[in-house]
């Protein structure tokens, strides 16, 4: 194994340039090193001006998303040796505006997350003194997968619909809505129906399936969206045939 690998890293310095460029760096190629370790080496030893997000380095905080050799990845969870002999091309996550170097702008997702009302909505709140809402392990399984989302945005980066139409609600937001819809303690399904069944909601999805492929946590947002299409369609038919059952 050679002891070095070249990293081609996208740079964008808004005070200096109008569009991103690439800088090349040679970093040590160690078998334990993730792409993130390479970036840290660059910043610590070669070029302190490189900006990127990272925190937990164990694939749970969702900060370090980037496009590595064309694929959306967490830089802490993908290893330099996977790309040997290189070069490794590191760019910001696709489909997002770029603030600086590898840092993209995420306020769109933060807004959309709020819109799907991602909290427990109950018809009747039970005081804490009366103990827990009972939930069997089987009921927990129903939504557990969708609760694993770390908000890393790799799915938005992989989704061609989001790339073409930024108004699309997007995989993670819909998966998180489903996480609550399918939680046995939640009664808020009809409240979320409006936002989810809009054209930019689930109906914007054309089931490309790339989001589930990119997801590092196995959330399967594509599945969440298609399941909700069924739910939304059924609700629409019910509303048509039995308008008196509307809440």
């Amino acid at each position, binding site marked *: 194994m050679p002891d070095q690998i070249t990293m081609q890293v996208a740079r964008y310095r808004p*005070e200096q340039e109008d569009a991103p460029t690439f800088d090349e760096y040679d970093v040590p190629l160690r078998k*334990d090193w993730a792409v993130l370790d390479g970036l840290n080496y660059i910043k610590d030893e070669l070029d*302190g001006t490189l900006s990127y997000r990272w925190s937990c380095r164990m694939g749970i905080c969702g*900060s370090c998303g980037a496009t590595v050799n064309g694929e959306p990845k967490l830089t802490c969870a993908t290893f330099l040796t996977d790309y040997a002999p290189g070069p490794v091309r590191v760019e910001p996550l696709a489909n997002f505006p770029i603030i600086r170097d590898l840092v993209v702008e995420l306020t769109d997702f933060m807004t959309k997350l709020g819109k799907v*009302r991602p909290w427990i909505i109950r018809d009747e709140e039970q005081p804490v003194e009366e103990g*827990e809402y009972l939930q069997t392990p089987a009921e927990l399984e129903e939504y557990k997968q969708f609760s694993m989302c770390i908000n890393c945005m790799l799915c938005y980066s992989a989704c061609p619909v989001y790339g073409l139409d930024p108004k699309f609600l997007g995989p993670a937001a819909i998966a998180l809505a489903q996480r609550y819809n399918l939680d046995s303690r939640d009664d808020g399904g009809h409240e979320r129906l409006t936002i989810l069944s809009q054209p930019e909601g689930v109906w914007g999805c054309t089931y490309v399936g790339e989001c589930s492929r990119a997801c590092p946590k196995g959330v399967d947002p594509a599945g969440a969206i298609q399941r909700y299409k069924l739910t939304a369609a059924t609700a629409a038919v019910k509303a048509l045939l039995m308008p008196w059952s509307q809440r």
Partner: protein
Amino acid sequence: MSASHDVVIVGGGGAGLRAAIAVAETDPSLSVAVVSKVYPMRSHTVSAEGGAAGAIRSDDSLDEHAYDTVSGGDWLCDQDAVGAFVAEAPRELLRLEHWGCPWSREADGHIAVRPFGGMKKMRTWFAADKTGFHLLHTLFQTSLKYPSIARYDEWHVTRLLVDEGRVCGVVALELMSGRVEAIMGKAVILATGGCGRIFPFTTNAAIKTGDGMALAYWAGAPLKDMEFVQYHPTGLPFTGILITEAARSEGGWLVNKDGYRYLQDYNLGTPSPKPVFRSMELGPRDRLSQAFVHEVEKGRTIDSPYGPVVHLDLRHLGAKVIDTKLPFVRELCHKYENIDPVHELVPVRPVVHYMMGGVHTDIHGATGVAGLYAAGEVACVSINGANRLGSNSLPELLVFGARAGQAAAQYAVDAAPPPAAAEAQAADEQRRLERELLGRAAGRERMSTIRTQMQSTMEEAAGIYRDGDTLAKAADKLRELRERAASATIDDVSRTFNTELTAALELTGMIDLAESMVHSALHREESRGAHQRTDFPARDDERFLAHSMAYREPDGSPRIEHMPVTITRWPPGERVYGK
């Protein structure tokens, strides 16, 4: 132009978000700001794995939880605070459940609990082995429903605004644009977590640089018990990634190079096939980490490219238990060590994990400075004393986050608005930051050099075992590093997302905190919990049944005083494990 709120919370993790919700629920007319240098769901709460303790079983009691905590903390815990903590913990955890936290359940739908280190009964609630992740996301998503909570995402607080002994808000740098603004507040709550990044091997994320502790220290609030640094016995070598204590509470064993369960040699009980409360692998973290050091001295550890390790043996648990109760552990071992714990031994070593010490607060979260509150790992109430029990930290975030939120809300209702003079301080801060930004492109050395030297100094002097000489030398070295840090290079002169500037600010804070740790350790001439002095190997309750209080002198060095521990129920006794 500056913003103004009633309560300003620095830090958006478990404690910060719980405090924000507490303010919003106490008085919805108060405006509360959460100012975080990262998006809240990136906060380090997210990495917690094992669980959160709350006494709910019929065979358990609040007294037992309290006693386990006090003895686990080697009697340095303030017992009135512990009493309040254990009483409120179950209610807070239930509140989280009502907000949607996916706690693991028994077959009948009730909350499930598991055993944990240092606890006599099963009382640790858990959400598989991603408890912190689920807790944080539940809190964050729930916080979105309160319109009175305003968020400042990716704003780095650089200084507290203090006027005539009263906190009036913060000065913060917006990462995206580089602008520096004052965010005025009648009350400020610090919830910025600990500072594991002062050490070279840590479970902590990059963001754990003790920013809030430094802010309080510079504003005149004392830091308490800084010498008490917890080493978690099972971190992965090289990365330091946490392998949760739950692996041991589900039945995992720690073995040395001979396959021998070595903990039996260290007064921690005798080995049995199933885990026994407060015994062997379920002993307290400080004792387990100390045992590792002795094994290294005896030459019974395994050599790895990253130093000596021992092995965590989970093979006898079987794939079904591991996939149900420890799926994240399996994933981490596979990804970062290329090992499947179902079939292979996992290499582990003690790594820095938690700071028992922090900003001194009372049981309501109030610090020594009017209007300033603190909660979570940044604070030291103290409920953890000289050594924290696993699964006490997550409920601590909730209990004291809520208390600090309520106290700050009450204070803000009665307090006068901050004086205009305080806002002017923000202009000074902005000028200081611009000097930092523009004046150091041709600095004398790289920041990473100083940071690495600080980390190795701390590992050597303030590790699991300490002695007076090494500590004294470290104090000198840190003073030297403090001076060198002021002229280290900052290549990046951009105003847009300048992470080198924020790294420089963090490094300055860390060196100050490291100094407070070393000086506190030097002045504590005894061994207690996680602070072990080879030159003072016994516990000395006569002189040191007291908290260390570090105050910052005008020349930047720490002044150490002592404050007695609050003893209410349990006079200091012997810590007995394994019986």
